[in-house]
């Protein structure tokens, strides 16, 4: 191992990787929930919900993830007067608790970035699920309705599971993309993987070596995540992962 790669530096990078993994897991789970809700609402029977879901999907798919991250983390606190800002976003029981759990000094930024990513990925997942639902034969919906389930329940309990299997490769792609997008949190001072590498570069000046290492870290994470999701897909009996990169 080269001399500049000290144990201390290494443990910083591992800590960054942990934050990246944590951000990925929490934002992915939330994104799946948002995406599921929005896909069902958009095709559901309630006009009000349909409109809200549509608005949600359009806004969060068409605004870059980076802008969302910066907006949530940096701009939103500015909506509040200065004297209130500190207590509301940076110094209260909740942020203290989050600090203790995550080990982050300013958990608001991580929380905001996580939420921005979840909204963004959720919008994309909603659209993926919707096209998955469109690929399910209508006879399924008819069959379920004739058994007495209403439209929304049929959609949720009968059509959606089939749609998830059809759309699984695209869902998996999007979740891996979400993992890569957590690197955007480095713009708002979240000590995730890329941020840790930036810190390491300023301390050691080994920019090219460290950046190659950063790329390798992410490559390992995305390869492992793809493999893990493939396993899940196989258990679900999903279509073979040979997906198109769903934007």
């Amino acid at each position: 191992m080269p001399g500049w790669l000290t144990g201390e530096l290494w443990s910083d990078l591992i800590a960054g990787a942990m934050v990246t993994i944590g951000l990925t897991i929490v934002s992915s789970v939330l994104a799946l929930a948002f995406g599921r809700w929005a896909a069902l609402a958009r095709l559901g029977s309630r006009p009000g919900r349909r409109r809200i879901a549509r608005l949600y999907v359009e806004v969060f798919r068409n605004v870059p993830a980076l802008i969302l991250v910066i907006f949530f983390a940096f701009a939103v606190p500015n909506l509040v007067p200065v004297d209130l800002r500190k207590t509301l976003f940076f110094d209260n029981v909740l942020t203290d608790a989050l600090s203790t759990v995550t080990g982050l000094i300013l958990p608001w930024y991580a929380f905001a970035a996580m939420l921005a990513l979840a909204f963004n990925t959720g919008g994309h997942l909603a659209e993926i699920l919707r096209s998955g639902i469109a690929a399910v034969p209508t006879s399924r919906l008819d069959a379920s309705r004739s058994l007495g389930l209403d439209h929304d329940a049929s959609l949720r309990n009968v059509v959606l599971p089939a749609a998830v299997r059809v759309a699984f490769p695209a869902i998996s792609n999007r979740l891996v993309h979400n993992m890569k997008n957590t690197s955007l949190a480095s713009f708002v001072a979240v000590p995730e993987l890329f941020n840790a590498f930036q810190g390491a570069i300023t301390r050691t000046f080994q920019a090219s070596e460290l950046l190659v290492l950063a790329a390798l870290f992410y490559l390992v994470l995305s390869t492992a995540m793809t493999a893990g999701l493939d396993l899940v897909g196989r258990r679900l009996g999903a279509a073979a992962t040979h997906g198109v990169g769903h934007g």
Partner: protein
Amino acid sequence: MGEQLEFLVGILPDLLVGFPGRRPGGLLLSILLTLASLAVGTTLGVVLGFGQESRLWAIRAPSRSIVQVVRGVPLLVLLVLIHTFVGAGRIGGVSTSALQSAFLTLTIYSAAYQADVVAAGIRSVPTTWIDHALLLGTRRLHINRTIVAPKALRTMRPALLTQAITVFKDSSVVVVLGVADLTTNARIALAADVDNTPFWVGTYLLVGGLYFMVARTAALLVERLGDDELNNFGTVINSPDQSTVGH
């Protein structure tokens, strides 16, 4: 409120076309950069896509590796990595500007994603078509050019265009190199004065709105194109108030 509006109107030209003397910049530069990267990147993507589906291992293996590596690393990391190598003249003594590095990275990035779309398109071409042509004694290269490529590209046109819109949104990440694009200019305008903090929300809403407008308009155009081509193709489950499921 008046102050907010005044500030936003003041920076609008900088966001749209760039700061005086640094034009093209802002949204215009984001669009130009995206279009230029896509022009080269999509061409490369077609080559890589065919490479990925090649029967020759010597072509298939490197094509797949390139695509997998580029897709496995966040754009943010790619940008900084590539700029560190080519921006400092570490490769071949050629030193690129930040804008050139951004162009190069976005080109490679879009090539990898478009390659996957093209490869999926190639796989969608019915093998019987190829078999028939082979039976007639047509050479592989000729088949690829006259049968596979036109069919694959036509099938995948909506997906290629959707991916292109993604590249536009992702181009916001070039802010890390400070390339006078829309996101960079918003940052510069806000950082010009410490008293600008009240304008963060408005500015990022405006920036998000500008990205939204371009991306949404482009998406609508793509959708219309897709609707024309996919007329009477597949069954779609509609919400109950729209013409309910037929057959």
